[in-house]
């Protein structure tokens, strides 16, 4: 997993890294530079020490040479011998005078001259007060053989209290010898103030001028063998007050830095001299490293500036770059989420500003394109929806397949026609409900649609999911893409089973009707033919019989024609239903009256069970008459002589119930379900009454059901039948037809 880093973070990290690098380099540079400068300062100080030593030794050497020079002075030598030999104070005074006036003035560095006898006692001096003092401490081994002319001894710095001053001084001693014998007769000692010597150290040396000027606080001082700093600043009269750091002296020229006795951190260089002295030059670190300090301050300043600059850059970048980028990113995200109204508000005359306006333009274009597309899609979808609704809703079965016949689409009618759910149809092939036709049929169909690329039309028998067969008028057409490549087929089927049935039943109706019409016609024809027998063999009885047959057949034909007309009007739904309040009992009695002859002939017993409270009911009297007539005629026709017929009229709930019970033939059980069919006649009825046309009950049932009622029966062969008719008390439903039915 990589952590996602923001530009801001990367930028700040980068700048911080640069900052750290710069500061690091600076610090390293600073440290190395500091060490380097420190070394340089030390080297300079060492140089100064060397120069100082030369100056110091020069100064001392000058005094020594002067002293040696004085020791060769004849007057001094003679006077010394005279004092030693005679002890004459005048000579001592003269010598003292000579020393003060002629010698002392020659060298400013020398502040006093003493002449010692071999025992070390001052016998003459530039200051008469010194005579008689012991001066042996300034001369070592004054008796030594080596202490000869030209040699001078330089003492260490010593505290002296002579010549009226108390100071720290150096004593330079040279031997005095007899002019003639060369024998050592004493010594001449010159005194130089240590302060003067030390000031020699401060002598402006041309070489070192630059250095001296650079280090204002530089201090050069001499340390004697005892570790005291030889500098007038530290003299308290003849007393040395300041002891130098012993370690410094011992380490000689190795020390670089230390905190001096005054508590100041200094860089110093120490030089150990043969004389046992140590020359020390020191500069306070602050001053010595002023440049590096300046550099450090500069660096700190620069670093601060740099940090501020970087912070400023970060701030500017954040404000001018990162924030706009974030705003752009946010806007882009919003745009991606489909908010086409999002705009950025970055006002800058740079790439980001350009990007922002580009973004806004793009967003605008996208919005327009999207709106256009959305509109198009809406239109197309609406069109498609309409189209789909149309195809889905059409009563014809529509199926679209790919070029291998696999179903891609099936409409609702396809589900209804085949009985398969769309989920079952899609992905299957039309053979799912096909395969009922001979193989040649399908071969021809495929040949037409696939090879000839033409539409195929035909009548096809298919099988529903529930196993029922149906007949369809099928149109199968190949579908081509724009390049003319076949990519599928569309099959439209119209279930014409019902149509076929209707056609068949119509054909059958015509067939049977014409058959039924031909029968009485045949009878009429033949009997007329027999009547008109030219041979004259027809007896009057026969003639009567023939006429009767002709009359019956004619009547039968009229009845049949009326019935056929009624059936036709019933089937087409064009018959008139014109209601008015009808007293059912009266209507029934009217029908009975019409049948009274037949009833009497057969001696039938009629039982009328009418509910007297039955109100008048809205009914079409003609229709009601047809219904009652058919039921009663059947009862009379099929009831044997002396039988009984019971007629019942009653209220049953919201209905009026008509019951006609006979004691007749009854309907054979196996034919009961067909009794209401057009032209159907039960076998026993046909045998007994060949004249019937089989349309009566069909008409009754059709009329009753059309009026909102129902009809049913209970029957047992050879026992009798009871027909029930139920009509609503509210009356018959009024139909739309305008054709009256024939009675």
């Amino acid at each position, binding site marked *: 997993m990589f952590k996602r880093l923001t530009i801001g973070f990367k930028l700040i990290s980068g700048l911080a890294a640069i900052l750290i690098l710069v500061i690091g380099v600076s610090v390293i540079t600073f440290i190395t530079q500091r060490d380097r400068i420190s070394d340089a300062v030390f080297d300079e100080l060492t140089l100064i020490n060397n120069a100082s030593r030369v100056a110091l030794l020069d100064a001392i050497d000058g005094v020594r040479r002067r002293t040696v020079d004085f020791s060769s002075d004849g007057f001094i030598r003679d006077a010394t011998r005279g004092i030693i030999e005679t002890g004459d104070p005048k000579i001592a005074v003269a010598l003292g005078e000579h020393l003060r006036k002629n010698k002392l003035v020659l060298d400013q560095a020398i502040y006093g001259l003493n002449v010692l006898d071999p025992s070390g006692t001052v016998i003459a001096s530039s200051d008469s007060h010194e005579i008689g003092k012991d001066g042996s401490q300034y001369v070592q081994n004054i008796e030594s053989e080596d202490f000869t002319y030209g040699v001078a001894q330089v003492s260490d710095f010593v505290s002296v209290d002579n010549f009226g001053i108390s100071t720290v001084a150096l004593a330079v001693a040279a031997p005095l010898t007899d002019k003639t014998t060369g024998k050592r007769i004493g010594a001449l000692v010159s005194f130089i103030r240590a302060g003067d010597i030390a000031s020699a150290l401060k002598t402006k040396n041309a070489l070192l001028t630059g250095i001296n000027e650079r280090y204002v606080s530089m201090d050069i001082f001499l340390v004697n063998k005892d570790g005291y700093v030889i500098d007038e600043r530290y003299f308290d009269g003849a007393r040395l007050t300041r002891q130098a750091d012993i370690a410094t002296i011992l380490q000689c020229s190795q020390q670089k830095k230390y905190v001096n006795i005054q508590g100041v951190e200094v860089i110093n260089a120490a030089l150990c001299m043969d004389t046992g002295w140590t020359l020390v030059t020191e500069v306070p670190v602050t001053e010595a490293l002023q440049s590096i300090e300046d550099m450090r301050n500069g660096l700190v300043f620069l670093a601060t500036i740099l940090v501020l600059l970087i912070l400023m850059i970060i701030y500017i970048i954040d404000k001018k770059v990162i924030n706009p980028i974030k705003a752009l990113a946010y806007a882009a995200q919003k745009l991606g989420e489909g908010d086409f109204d999002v705009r950025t508000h970055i006002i800058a005359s740079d790439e980001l500003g350009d990007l922002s306006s580009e973004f806004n333009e793009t967003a605008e274009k996208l919005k327009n394109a999207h709106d256009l597309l959305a509109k198009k899609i809406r239109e197309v979808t609406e069109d498609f929806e309409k189209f789909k609704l149309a195809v889905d809703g059409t009563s014809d079965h529509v199926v679209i397949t790919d070029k291998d016949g696999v179903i891609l689409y099936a409409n609702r009618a396809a589900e209804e026609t085949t009985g398969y759910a769309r989920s079952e149809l899609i992905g299957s092939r039309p053979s799912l409900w096909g395969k009922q036709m001979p193989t040649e049929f399908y071969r021809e169909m495929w040949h037409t649609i696939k090879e000839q690329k033409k539409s195929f039309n035909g009548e096809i028998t298919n099988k529903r999911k529930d196993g029922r067969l149906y007949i369809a008028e099928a149109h199968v057409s190949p579908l081509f893409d724009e390049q003319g490549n076949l990519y599928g087929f569309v099959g439209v089927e119209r279930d014409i089973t019902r149509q076929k049935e209707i056609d068949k039943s119509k*054909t*059958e109706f015509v*067939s049977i009707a014409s058959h039924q019409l031909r*029968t009485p016609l*045949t009878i009429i*024809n*033949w009997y007329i033919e027999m009547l008109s027998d030219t041979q004259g063999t027809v007896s009057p009885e026969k003639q009567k019989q023939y006429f009767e047959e002709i009359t019956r057949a004619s009547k039968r034909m009229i009845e049949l024609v009326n019935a056929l007309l009624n059936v036709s009007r019933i089937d087409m739904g064009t018959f008139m239903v014109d209601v008015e309040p009808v007293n059912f009992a009266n209507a029934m009695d009217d029908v009975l009256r019409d049948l009274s002859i037949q009833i009497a002939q057969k001696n039938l017993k009629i039982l009328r069970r009418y509910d007297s409270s039955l109100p008048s009911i809205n009914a079409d009297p003609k229709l009601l008459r047809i219904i009652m007539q058919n039921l009663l005629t059947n009862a009379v026709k099929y009831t044997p002589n002396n039988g009984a017929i019971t007629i019942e009229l009653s209220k049953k709930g919201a209905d009026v119930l008509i019951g006609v019970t006979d004691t007749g033939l009854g309907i054979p059980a196996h034919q009961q379900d067909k009794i209401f069919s057009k032209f159907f006649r039960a076998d026993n009825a046909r045998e007994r009454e060949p004249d019937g046309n089989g349309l009566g009950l069909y008409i009754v049932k059709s009329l009753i059901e059309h009026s909102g009622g129902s009809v049913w029966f209970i029957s047992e062969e050879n026992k009798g039948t009871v027909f029930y008719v139920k009509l609503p008390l509210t009356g018959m439903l009024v139909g739309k037809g305008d054709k009256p039915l024939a009675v």
Partner: protein
Amino acid sequence: MNQKVVPDIRILIVEDEEPILSALAEKIQQTGFAEPLKARNGEEGLEIALKEHPDLLLVDILMPKMDGITMVKELRKDEWGKSAKVIILTNFDTTDAILKDVALIEPSFYLLKSNWNIDDVVVKIKEVLELI
């Protein structure tokens, strides 16, 4: 000529329409044939035919219990009946669906009653019986 031959010939009429049955029977008898055998439905007709082996059967189609076509089909299953002479007399037209099986029962002739005079029917009977 006719009078000599026909009395030996027995004809079975299978017809449910009584007036037609009577007319045919009467005419046949008048022509000189013996009184025809009569049946009023296919069942009865088959029974009489197989029992009496008539020379000719006049068979109606639409009848109760058993229609004429079924009756003749049954008759053709019988050794005698297979070659029995049958004239179908009906009021169905040949184009009617119910008659599509008529050829299968190999009738000697088929006639549409309403289109025929009864005298011509008798002539046809004689023709089928090879009497003329």
